[in-house]
């Protein structure tokens, strides 16, 4: 199982083995990562699963679609070029070691 590294705003790290096909958001909720809220349940209606993806992995992700791009406009912490919604990132073998950083707040 690919390993995903979640880095909280205060720098704390947690490594989770995530089954291929599971989203970075769903794995966070299952494993007690408090920095991801996922209020809408993963349907691109809220921005509370916002993460900053490590530069080395950005190009390995399929680009965000219009809906995700729109949601990032309302993120509680202003979006950056490496901002993504973790509900839209499905883990693949290629993403082994993926690092996502969580914003200071999600709401």
């Amino acid at each position, binding site marked *: 199982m690919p390993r995903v590294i979640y880095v909280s705003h205060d720098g704390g790290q947690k490594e989770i083995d995530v089954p291929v096909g599971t989203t970075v958001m769903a794995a966070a909720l299952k494993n*007690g990562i408090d920095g991801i809220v996922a209020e809408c349940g993963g*349907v691109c*209606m809220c921005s509370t699963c916002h993460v900053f993806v490590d530069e080395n992995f950005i190009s390995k992700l399929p680009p965000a679609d219009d*809906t995700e791009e*729109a*949601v990032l*406009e*309302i993120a509680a912490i202003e979006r950056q070029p490496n901002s993504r919604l973790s509900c839209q990132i499905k883990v693949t073998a290629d993403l082994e070691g993926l690092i996502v950083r969580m914003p200071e707040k999600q709401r």
Partner: protein
Amino acid sequence: MTSAGTVIIGTGLAGFQTAASLRAESYQEPITLIGEEPHIPYQRPPLSKGFALGTQDRDSIELRPQKFYQDHKINLITGQRVAAIQPVERHIQLASGSRIPYDKLILAVGASNRLLPIPGAKLDGVLYLRSLDEAIALKECLATAKNVAVIGGGFVGLELAAVASSLGKSVTVIEALPRLMSRVVAPIISQYFVDLHSGRGVKVICGASVTEIAGVSGKASSLALNDGTQIDADLILVGIGVVPNVDLTRDAGLPVSNGIAVNEHLQTQDENIFAIGDCAEHPCSFANARLRLESVQNAADQAQCVAATIAGKEEIYRALPWFWTDQFDIKLQMAGISHGHDRIVTRGHRETGKLSVFYFKQNRLIAVDSINRPLDHMLGRKLLAAGTALTPEQATDENFDLKTLAQKPKST
């Protein structure tokens, strides 16, 4: 003496989020989260969408795993009915007889399905959908059903019609009012969804009411409309709205109207008792009216507000309402409260499948509905929340840049 802490009645999103947000606010006192349903808190929206369709399983709709409640010292009690609230003594009484004391009590008791008041409504094969157990029963019936009738052309009814149609069933939707989702959306949106459903083979009948359900050996087999039409149906899904659960509150002597009456802090007449989510009627600044809203946004934001207040921040509730519905592959996104609008303009075109409707009241933007124009929805949320001025002419002009306007500081 130790504090009795906070007791939350209701394990839906509002109840769950209150508990989670209290801990996020570093609240240290005991938290008890108690609900009638036998399940740990789960998301309701997928029940009429992915769960019914089979693309989401039970595990994937849990709000958090069981361990979350232990880790956050939330005493989760499922499968227990609350029989009474005793505000003077500050405790609740369970149907089982035991009592739980509280310092603060949160009523997140939700709503119940409005029942169909016609002959035959109790036959087998007549189903409602609100809870996970109802969704499991519905899925089972869907597996073998041939002809599905949906009574009620609102969000839940139409979502289920789309699911049943996608599963290959013959589906008829019957709506009593002249158009679909008429309580919330403009006629152009209603028509978009009539076309969507009709295009996928769903028969949509508006302006007709069901007078009777007939059955064979106790099982529904057809229904009759007020004009005498008979429609074969071995599965009848009723989605005609809900009624708020107010009995406990009324019995406790607290005011109820169309829901449990609360002030801008979401507090009932008793300062230690709050009501949130589907059951609560609150003053909504965006509508200039007292409203009861049934939505994820309302449940989550009200929970957050109450948690902050209990943690000592005295929050006033002023979150912008937003909603969505998924039917087939189309998502309708709604921001604000369109009720009372006196003018609508469109942005985009129905023919291209990309359309937003902007609702105005006395030239002030009050709501935006969007289909396949997600940026309009999100920017609409920003504009509405900030009270930024937008004219109908600007809204309908696709060359007018909403994004720049939404980034501007609030204009007064």
